[in-house]
């Protein structure tokens, strides 16, 4: 298929994407401060966390449950290095602390990656989950860094301002970071390194035969995933103004997995779509008497239904709709399975 041709399918895909992007750019004019902060900003940083998982799952074939632990390492490191209640007494410049936090998460990611990168599939999932829960217990036990009370009133860079009374700056920071992460991953997928990662995803033994160091590639990919997760961790601490072991517990780890699966585990855009659905649902159900207290049951049931009925998530459903409509509009028979340019950079599981 010609990449530049504007087929009805492409129009159906890019039209809504452009409209949504435009809405996000002018969102502070359209939505109340409460909605902007509690739903949109939250969805953006949750989306970045989910994007780190989807990057690993879709491009390298590594479904990791360690992303929340990594964002916790970034967040806790940063929170300990600036002025805050609890944690270590160090008070560095917030930007320096942010940088060190991100580096700490990348370092931890490379180390975890070195441990787990020789395991595949479900073993990899289990090892990353074990690492994630161990990280949670570590911050719960070690009172020098956190303890169960966590680190509160974390000092933020001046530009972040107060996320409750003045949420606009943090919203744009989260939006720009999301856009940068998205663009970075899409760019990376076309570089030789990104292509090698996709080769590892499809056939590790063949890549090894071609002379690639497969465990090293997987370890580096995990480090990159940690970098993306670290952005989410830093923004989440700015947004919450605090971090505690509860921010990285098993529930939160599963939340990020749920977001990725609801959005679509094999489409990068799905991260933010799923995160928005999650945050909006969370906000909406809080007001309902029946389910207000039982949000997790609602999320569990939705997750179960998505996994059982539509493994591609919301993006998968949308893809089917656009394919169907596109073929109708183009006057082609609707039966042919979709193929073409998009399939090469957004693989479906075989």
């Amino acid at each position, binding site marked *: 298929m010609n990449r530049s041709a504007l087929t009805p399918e492409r129009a159906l895909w890019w039209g809504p994407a452009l409209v949504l992007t435009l809405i996000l750019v002018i969102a502070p004019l359209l939505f109340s401060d409460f909605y902007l902060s509690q739903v949109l900003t939250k969805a953006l940083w949750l989306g970045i966390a989910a994007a780190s998982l989807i990057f690993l799952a879709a491009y390298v074939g590594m479904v990791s449950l360690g992303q929340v632990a990594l964002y916790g390492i970034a967040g806790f490191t940063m929170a300990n290095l600036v002025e805050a209640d609890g944690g270590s007494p160090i008070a560095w410049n917030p930007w320096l602390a942010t940088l060190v936090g991100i580096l700490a998460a990348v370092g931890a990611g490379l180390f975890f990656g070195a*441990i787990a990168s020789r395991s595949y599939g479900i*073993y990899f999932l289990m090892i990353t989950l074990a690492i994630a829960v161990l990280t949670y*217990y*570590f911050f719960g*036990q070690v009172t020098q860094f956190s303890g169960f009370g966590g680190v509160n009133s974390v000092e933020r860079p001046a530009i972040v301002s107060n996320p409750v009374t003045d949420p606009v700056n943090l919203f744009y920071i989260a939006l720009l970071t999301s856009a940068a992460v998205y663009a970075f991953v899409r760019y990376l997928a076309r570089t030789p390194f990104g292509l090698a990662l996709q080769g590892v995803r499809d056939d590790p033994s063949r890549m090894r035969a071609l002379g690639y160091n497969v465990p090293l590639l997987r370890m580096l990919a995990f480090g990159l995933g940690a970098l993306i997760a670290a952005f989410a961790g830093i923004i989440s601490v700015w947004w919450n103004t605090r971090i505690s072991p509860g921010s990285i517990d098993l529930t939160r780890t599963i939340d990020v*997995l749920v977001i990725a699966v609801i959005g679509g585990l094999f489409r990068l855009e799905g991260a933010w779509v799923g995160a928005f659905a999650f945050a909006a649902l969370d906000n909406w159900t809080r007001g309902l008497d029946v389910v207000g207290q*039982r949000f997790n*049951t609602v999320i569990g*049931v939705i997750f*179960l239904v998505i996994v059982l009925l539509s493994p591609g998530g919301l993006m998968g459903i949308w893809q089917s709709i656009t394919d169907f409509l596109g073929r109708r509009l183009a006057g082609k028979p609707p039966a042919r399975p979709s193929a073409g340019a998009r399939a090469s950079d957004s693989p479906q599981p075989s």
Partner: protein
Amino acid sequence: MSEATAGVADLDWRSRLAALPPGALALRIAVAVVVGFVAVWVSYKAYGDPRQFVIVGLNGLTLAGLYFVVASGFTLIFGLMRVVNMAHGSLYMLAGFFALELQTKLTGGEATSAFGSSEAGLGDWIIPLVVACLAVGVIGLVMQQVFLRWNQGQDLRQALITIAISIIIADQTLAHFGGIAESLAAPDSFPESVHLPFSDLTYPFFRIFVLLVAIALGLCLWAMIQRTRFGMIVRAGVDDRQMVSALGINIQLVFAAAFFLGATLAGLGGVLGGTMISVDKANDTQYLLISLIVVIIGGMGSLAGAAIGALALGLVDSFGDVYLPAGYTNYSILLIFGLLVLVLAVRPLGLFGRPA
């Protein structure tokens, strides 16, 4: 690394060591140094206070017994069906709450104190045990029949399904049973503590009982897998599922039975752990982690691996809290992490793991 050693498996250990690439050799030396250092440190501390060593060692062994009961169910299910049951910890927790609820009903709420005098008769403990195990077994069976059976072979999807179920169970448990940690009362016919031979030390009887149950269970499972027809089918199913069904064996029935058994073992662990330690809403995360670590260390699907993994985890858990230098005992979780790293560095599939 495994490929490098596979070809030279018939050589003696000296030549096998020499055949390793330099990186792998350095790794092995590093692992040996760490293990040696730990051994020296433990011996030094044990020499300083032998009574403490005995008690902490027994704590570790009895914990290992509990961990083995829980993880054996997890590894059984995985070994046969390649299903990673992420709801295993949830089943453990549910059994504890079921048993607690039933015991409270049976005794009229008089017997909920774990330590000190117990008012529960033998039946007040046995009946909740049996009912909770069966109830959890049935929940596991329903889970397998309704959600997992028609997704056979899609291991990621099955793991996601069990995660979804664990979310629902955790939330509903919180709604129905509340969040207060309580313990089941052990039967009053059990002695509270026993005297250890060759010393004046006493030790809680129930913890010894858990260890004995775990050993008996391990022997029974081993005998079942090695000696019975069901065990033969299970072993054959682990190696080649399609061939087994081609031979006219109803593999679906075997799967259902194995899942029921695995879930029941989670339930047994939940009641034993609920009596030995406590019933708590955080149990699901905790025992999922324990099951994961035990089988990652021991190797998925291997019963002997589960025993070794449980032993290693139980001892590290118990000694780590006491033997770390004063002021650093809250770093004990790093020792478990270190154990995981050590094993995975040398054997990515676990000590007894085989490639699928």
